[in-house]
């Protein structure tokens, strides 16, 4: 028996969501009275996962897996789950985790619940709380199969430190790699992605045109944030589609979300609601976003944002 967690890495280094997923897996393992095994593909220093509660790490290094391959990755996690006799498999809400999850569910004949926001409410029956209706509600759902797959929502549990000693074990299962081949990858390596960012700075139609995004980018760079935008902004081609956030765009679950010149339409809010702290800058005090935000300034973005950049630079130099 064990709780298995798939840990994602980028360029050999574990992502923060991997640390969070291990912390969460440890929480479940404690409830079930068992241990956490992590499976890591092409990652370095894998024993560091002990610091988040893993007792064992199954380690796989394989050049042919350098590019993500959902079928291959799913088959590795499935083999690991069988080997470890896992009752629960923990994944995250990253795009790649959500690609693997349904394949894995069929391979293990396991019930799968995504977007889980807290530890199971009970172990038997195994009941989890997860967001549904694009964050407008939660469902308390029972997973009835012997093996259970949960996809943890980002930033829902947090990274928790433990001082478990993790043993490592080389793992070389039979891999089914399917018939999907990567031709080319187009990835900006110097930019913080919306998925990984702790802070997201987002601009809407209130910014009037693409030529005004300089201050948005500068604000993002001062904060070490990713940039995002509302749907009409990407529809009009002011910004790339990859920055479109909301119900029909990317979800945002950052620590801080700063919305500038965005009205706060229901479809926009649905996608960003699970961010912890929301700030709005808008010159219309009636903008619906003020009802959803934690902090707000009513004012002209073209005045406020440059001031905010200056203030933050000052703050950063004092708090460096």
């Amino acid at each position, binding site marked *: 028996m064990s709780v298995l967690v798939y840990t994602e890495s980028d360029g050999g280094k574990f992502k923060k969501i991997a640390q969070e997923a291990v912390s969460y897996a440890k929480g479940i393992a404690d409830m079930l009275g068992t241990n956490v095994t992590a499976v890591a593909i092409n990652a370095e220093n894998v024993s560091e996962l002990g610091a988040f509660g893993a007792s064992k790490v199954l380690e796989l290094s394989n050049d042919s897996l350098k590019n993500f391959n959902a079928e291959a990755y799913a088959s590795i996690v499935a083999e690991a789950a069988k080997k470890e006799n896992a009752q629960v498999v923990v994944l995250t809400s990253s795009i790649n985790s959500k690609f693997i999850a349904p394949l894995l569910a*069929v391979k293990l004949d396991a019930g799968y619940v995504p977007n889980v926001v807290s530890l199971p409410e009970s172990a038997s029956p195994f009941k989890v709380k997860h967001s549904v209706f694009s964050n407008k509600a939660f469902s308390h759902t029972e997973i009835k199969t012997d093996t259970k797959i949960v996809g943890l929502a980002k930033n829902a549990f947090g990274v928790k430190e433990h001082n478990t000693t993790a043993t490592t074990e080389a793992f070389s299962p039979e891999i089914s790699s399917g018939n999907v081949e990567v031709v080319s*990858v187009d990835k900006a390596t110097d930019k913080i992605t919306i998925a990984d960012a702790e802070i997201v700075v987002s601009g809407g139609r209130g910014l009037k045109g693409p030529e005004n995004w300089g201050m948005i980018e500068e604000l993002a760079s001062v904060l070490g944030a990713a940039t995002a935008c509302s749907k009409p902004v990407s529809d009009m081609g002011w910004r790339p589609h990859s920055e479109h956030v909301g119900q029909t765009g990317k979800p945002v679950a950052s620590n801080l979300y700063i919305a500038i010149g965005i009205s706060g339409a229901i479809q926009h809010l649905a996608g960003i609601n699970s961010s912890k702290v929301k700030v709005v800058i808008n010159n219309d005090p009636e903008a619906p976003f003020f009802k959803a935000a934690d902090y707000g300034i009513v004012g002209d973005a073209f005045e406020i944002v440059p001031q905010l950049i200056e203030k933050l630079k000052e703050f950063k130099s004092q708090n460096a």
Partner: protein
Amino acid sequence: MKILVCISHVPDTTSKINFTEGDTKFDTNGVQFVINPNDEFGLTRAMWFKEKQGATVHVANVGGPETEPTLRKALAIGADEAIRINTVATDGYSVAKQLANVAKEGGYDLVIGGRESIDYNGGMVPGMIAQLTGANFINTCIGLEVEGNNATAVREMDGGKETLKTTLPLVIGGQKGLVEESDLRIPNMRGIMQARSKPLHVKEAVDISNETASIQFEKPAPKGAVKLVDNVEDLVNLLHNEAKAI
């Protein structure tokens, strides 16, 4: 090429979400149902394959009779035939089993689903169909070309995108990018008239099982009021000292 587009019948994005019967059922009172937005992008791409490459396009939904107007809308947009698998779908895995069965029986080369449905946000049905039928699978698909038995797809990933090469049979989880917003079609009168006489087959469900069961719903706690400030200095202080966000 035979294409099956999986259509999830979902509350319009502006719907107020409420529950009844002790928070165990979604309250459909006053709710307008639509084609799941991700599926509309997929259906529109399928229309392109039909018009440019002579593909046949069928649409399918797993649900009760109440979903038929949504299927008729898909027919009005241009699909050739519709299939409704008559069961109240309550779990993504069981929906996938029904659709996998339809996909196998119908010998479809390409199954187009959405990245996720905007109601239960499962994000699982297309991948499960692929795995159950042994087809290739590409999720978060934002571009698709098919030439004979070969397909080239673009997929969105964290921080970028990648181009993939694969073969039919193929299942995709699609989203905006497959076609643009401006390519979406509003059914015209002729389409609506034609849709009335297009076949809508009702099939009984096979192998109903539920791996998961929703026990109860809950709405998020109401949010506290916004704190308004009138200068950036206060904002920075609050974000640092109170919210601990910077």
